[in-house]
């Protein structure tokens, strides 16, 4: 073997120049979560050590993702090909500002969930693998954000899907299995459609590398099979992202698992679907996006409105939040429908905001349960008296999700409404504003019932029912800390939005002007 090596010119097949250690940041999130997940799985009988191991590795993950974002902002789009084989044959990891930002946000959310899980997940949940599943879920999520190969994207979707199945049935209650069946069925159908579309795409273009697809699809026009592939992708990822009319799995399943798991799901899973839509329609098949723009706009508007109307009709806080997740997906799709660079930047900003605020709201719902003993708006009441500090926290999160200043939800909506008006999409702008108003009413309702009203349903105005004040320490530091961190980020993005605007602007610029992306994969001279 050693003898034949010298006769072959390896530079024809492999990238031989040395790789900088900084480039290893591209794969570091995957290595960290895989090794951490494996360690957690080995030691899962040791329930006391589980959170420690997970928190150490997730902290490493946050640092790795932050380093990766800094690296990308410094160097532009970066690529590492596994094994050094030249693209399009080697499996590429290509990271732009969009992928790195979402990976960083997700890792922060996962770390918060691991801390929150210390009290929310009991020993039996730990033995059944909450922490290994959480870490491996992050492998899938980060892998999806960082990969530059569409089949690889499918693989990471599978990884996160399998981990999410495990998390969803943790506890094995009847309602959980019921929710898990709906969730699993819809998601497996979506993943299968994704796989079929990828197979067709490979048949048409003969490549799976995203940059290569982007080059080849630009010359291919929008007629015939490529359009079919685009529609299949849209359906598959709309299911993943829970867009109307394929969104019913989300409210049917998100209220069943433990609240911390629902928080992670609400933050991350649908956003991975939105990310895939952005990547495929803005970068890979831009002609198809133009052709489908009206459809996407319609889906976006209906998703926004049905989401928030669903939220208005719910009495279970968790289901209400599930509908708000859906409503947010509509706003993100609106940016994709408009399709200009500022609109895409708005979508990216909105995704970051939504990851943070939805996770924080689900955690807050867990806290409402801890303080008030229920998730139902009929039974909750008097929480303002139970914890004024928590009431303030919830109010801020409610303002953020409704898009009121000075919180993180305000800026993406401003960008999206502005982009919609500039692009002549008055309907979209109107829908975003109406949705914002209705969201304010929906979360205001939670605030009035759960915090202002003196007690459970039927309590007369101005009267305070006697209720069991929870013992001090019922809500520990490990609950306050993650909510506090997420709230801090929500406020920071609201009052100091410049950094995130700049980052999401760069992410959007890479999507609409992909030259940098293509150069990063194929080298300077190749194009």
């Amino acid at each position, binding site marked *: *073997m*050693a003898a034949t090596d010298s006769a072959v010119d390896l530079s024809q097949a492999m*990238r031989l120049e*040395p*790789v*900088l*250690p900084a*480039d*290893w940041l*591209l*794969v570091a999130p995957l*290595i960290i979560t*895989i*090794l951490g*997940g*494996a*360690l*957690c*799985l*080995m030691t*899962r009988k040791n329930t006391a050590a589980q959170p420690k191991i997970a928190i150490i590795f997730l902290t490493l993950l946050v640092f790795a993702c932050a380093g990766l974002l800094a690296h990308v902002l410094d160097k532009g789009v970066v690529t*590492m*090909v*596994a*094994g*050094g084989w030249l693209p399009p044959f080697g499996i590429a*990891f290509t990271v732009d500002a969009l992928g790195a930002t979402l990976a960083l946000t997700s890792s922060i959310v996962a770390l918060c969930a691991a801390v929150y899980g210390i009290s929310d997940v009991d020993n039996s949940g730990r033995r059944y*693998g909450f922490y*290994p599943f959480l870490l491996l879920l992050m492998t899938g999520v980060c892998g999806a954000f960082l990969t530059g190969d569409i089949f690889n994207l499918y693989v990471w979707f599978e990884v996160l899907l399998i981990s999410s199945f495990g998390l969803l049935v943790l506890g094995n209650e009847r309602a959980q299995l019921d929710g898990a069946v709906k969730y699993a069925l819809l998601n497996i159908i979506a993943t299968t459609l994704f796989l079929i579309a990828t197979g067709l795409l490979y048949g048409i273009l003969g490549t799976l590398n995203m940059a290569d697809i982007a080059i080849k699809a630009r010359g291919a026009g929008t007629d015939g099979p490529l359009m079919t592939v685009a529609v299949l992708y849209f359906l598959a990822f709309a299911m993943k992202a829970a867009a109307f009319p394929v969104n019913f799995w989300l409210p049917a399943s998100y209220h069943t698992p433990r609240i911390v798991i629902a928080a992670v799901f609400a933050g991350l899973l649908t956003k991975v679907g939105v990310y895939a839509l952005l990547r495929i329609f803005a970068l890979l098949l831009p002609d198809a996006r133009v052709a489908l723009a009206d459809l996407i706009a319609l889906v976006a508007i209906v998703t926004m409105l049905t989401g928030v109307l669903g939220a208005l009709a719910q009495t279970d806080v968790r289901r209400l939040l599930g509908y708000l997740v859906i409503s947010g997906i509509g706003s993100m799709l609106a940016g994709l429908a408009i399709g200009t660079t500022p609109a895409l930047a708005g979508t990216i900003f909105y995704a970051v905001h939504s990851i943070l605020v939805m996770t924080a709201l689900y955690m807050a719902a867990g806290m409402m349960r801890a303080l008030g003993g229920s998730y139902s708006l009929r039974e909750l009441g008097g929480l303002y008296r139970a914890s004024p500090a928590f009431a303030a926290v919830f109010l801020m999160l409610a303002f953020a999700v409704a898009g009121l200043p000075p919180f993180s939800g305000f800026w993406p909506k401003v960008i999206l409404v502005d982009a919609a008006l500039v692009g002549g999409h008055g309907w979209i702008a109107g829908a975003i504003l109406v949705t914002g108003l209705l969201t304010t009413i929906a979360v205001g309702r939670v605030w009035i019932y759960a915090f202002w009203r003196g007690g459970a349903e039927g309590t007369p105005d101005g009267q305070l029912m006697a209720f069991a004040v929870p013992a001090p320490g019922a809500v520990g530091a490990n609950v306050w800390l993650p909510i506090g961190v997420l709230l801090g980020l929500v406020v920071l993005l609201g009052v100091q939005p410049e950094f995130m605007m700049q980052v999401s602007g760069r992410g959007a610029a890479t999507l609409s002007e992909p030259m940098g992306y293509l150069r990063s994969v194929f080298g300077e001279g190749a194009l």
Partner: protein
Amino acid sequence: MRTIIFRTIAPYLAALMVLFSIFVLLRGHNEPGGGFIGGLIAASAFAIYGIACGVAAVRRAITLHPMTISAWGLFIAGLSGLPSLFMAQPFMTSQWWYVHAFGVEIPLSTPLFFDIGVYLVVVGSISSIALALEERESD
């Protein structure tokens, strides 16, 4: 199922299958075989042993919990991508060492360790499922 013939032959059969699975694992780099198929063969060996002699006997025989075996596999496979970090090469670039022992050149490589990792992941996860199903049956 639990005839005396089957119970007598099963331990030998299982041992033979595990041996064969390791053979398939090791030849996998250049010839048909590899970690995945090897792992399946080993897992079916455990399944056969479990059908013949009971799940408890299998759990005793493999000492570790199947999922722990899987975890070790994942860990080894993850680590096998790392040595190229120190060679200024991309993730998962294969590294080779040629070891001379007993007058034979033995090629060792990171793909081998990756394959061993895959083998352990497959053995662990498939036998975990198989044993759980067999346990349910014997209730």
